[in-house]
């Protein structure tokens, strides 16, 4: 997994509540395309009209937000389907950080698995950030600093909380599978105990 230290880039406010992973990536795109081919299809239903032309009013179709690397999102972002391709599609579009009041639990975990930083901030804080950015897109560039747990932009600083394990894992770019494989002895010990505790599951 890639390390996450500091991300500087344009932040796009997309404050609609309950944006689900079906909206982030449609299922037929994930069944017809693979990892590395999903970026062009991110937010397809929001970015394009039914005839395939871009919706000019949608934020990610407007400069400077077209090249956003950070999303300022609404409550329950990434709810719904467990499809990790939603995270891949965001990543392939260049988005490495999503800031929202709350997230779908599975999406939140999937972000962490891929080195995408998902930050929870109070809705009021996000609204203020968004208002400044929309008020003057020259303020749209933010710096997300994981080491110092700060979001900087326009001379202001917002701090954020993150679970220590997630922070360490992102900063070091740890591979969760490799980490767990170090615990082989404990896994084997569990299996031996379990054979005694639940023999009915082992025949």
């Amino acid at each position: 997994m890639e390390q996450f230290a500091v991300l500087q880039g344009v932040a796009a406010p997309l404050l609609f509540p309950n944006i689900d992973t079906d909206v982030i990536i449609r299922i037929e795109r994930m069944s017809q395309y693979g990892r590395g081919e999903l970026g062009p299809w991110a937010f397809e239903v929001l970015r394009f009209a039914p005839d395939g032309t871009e919706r000019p009013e949608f934020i990610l179709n407007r400069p400077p937000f077209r090249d956003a690397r950070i999303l300022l999102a609404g409550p329950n972002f990434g709810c719904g389907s467990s499809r990790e391709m939603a995270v891949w599609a965001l990543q392939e579009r260049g988005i490495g950080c999503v800031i929202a009041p709350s997230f779908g639990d599975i999406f939140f975990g999937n972000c962490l698995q891929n080195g995408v930083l998902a930050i929870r901030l109070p809705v009021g804080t996000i609204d203020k950030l968004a208002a400044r950015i929309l008020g003057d897109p020259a303020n749209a560039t933010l710096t997300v600093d994981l080491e110092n747990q700060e979001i900087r932009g326009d001379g202001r600083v917002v701090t954020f909380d993150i679970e220590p394990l997630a922070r360490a894992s992102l900063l070091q770019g740890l591979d969760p599978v490799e980490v767990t494989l170090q615990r082989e002895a404990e896994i084997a010990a569990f299996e031996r105990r379990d054979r005694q505790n639940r023999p009915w599951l082992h025949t």
Partner: protein
Amino acid sequence: MTGSGSVSSPRTLFDKLWDAHVVAEVTSDVSLLYVDRHLIHDLGGHTAFNEIERRGLSVRRPDRIFAVPDHVVSSAPGRTGGVAGWSNRHIDGLRDGCRKRGIRFFDVNDPEQGIVHVIGPELGLTVPGLLLVCGDSHTSTHGALGALAWGIGASEIVHVLATQTIVQRRPQRMRVRFDGTLAAGTEPKDLILRLIGELGAAGGNGYAVEYAGSAIRDMEIDGRLTLCNLSIEMGAKVGLVAPDERTFAYVVGRPFAPRDGDLELAMAHWRTLATDDDAVFDREVVLDASTVAPQVTWGTSPQDVIPIDAVVPDPARAPDASRRDAMAAALAYMGLTPGQPIAGTRIDRVFIGSCTNGRLPDLRRAAEVVRGRRVASHVQAWVVPGSQAVKRAAESEGLDRVFKEAGFEWREPGCSLCVGANGEMVAPGERCVSTSNRNFVGRQGPGARTHLASPAMAAAAAVTGTLADVRTFLR
């Protein structure tokens, strides 16, 4: 042990299940848990095997994994696989990957095939006390049998394949007590939709939810499966019902369930799987089941739900601007006007099926409404049984004839129109009454308008050609 403390202090069902699967504590609230069963399907299985190969990993416990194609299989009568080359690549990739690693695979037209969350309980792969995961958010379904089950992402699938474990943050615990008795014409689907409407699409975020109360005690297993299935639609990865005599009666004798001496040992364990009297939940919710009317969704989130005899809500009355904008956008997408009675809205399609409502009792309740009636001439109506076993059982009762004589299509098992992964979709602008789980924008196809409802309500819509109150059909 962490969180709820030592074994002697009162624990919830959730805590008992969690504690029994801890391999190691990673931090004070993150554990490495042992996975008893891992179910995989055609939309992800193939990719996971490729990743295992690419990284030079091996599958640790092939005997704990079961695989089935359900998402991309065609539901057309006489199908042999998917609808196109790309879908067959997923199915073939899953089949080959399983064969190579000695993983049990139920093929497209095998007697065991079906939607992964239908066949798990049906085959006895899901039994009380297990920790079960699957790369699909509706894995919450399996909690209805007293198993700890949730949906995982692609990276976690690889993690489970390689280590047979999963790293998880311990969620908070919520108990929802459904007291009272469901009124005639209402079903478990109505109960859970009403709850989602009250708590909201994020109301269960961070929680494992246990359903309890007299309405649950009285409920057959299939209804509990529907209830737990939809837990994820209020954000809860885990839904649970404590196993009881109904559960044991359901599980015993199923092909992969413990039998003979093993069954006795298992049963002794299963009988300990109930929340202790003094156990404390982080949140408690009570809902009187007798007050619940048949529900139907009007918007693009499962929380956008009203009783069938209500009017479409008005965004002007929303509590805040964000909610108002979301409601207005949902109504525009759905082509509905605030204040109009939802009943009587003309529909184009009906879909009866899915991991939510594709089981035999669901089809029976729908057939009861359909029997002796005709699907409205402008409506295209499908029944997609949840599994081959459901299909066989329904056919042996003659339900297929009831549906076909009314003008329904009787199709082959799979996810089908719930999610459109196989290419089966509702056309742009068409209005579909669906027994599935998500009315998201584009869920059933780009521009498709979905109204979630119970199987009986879907049947009533099919025969009237409009959203209709099934209670007027009761004989």
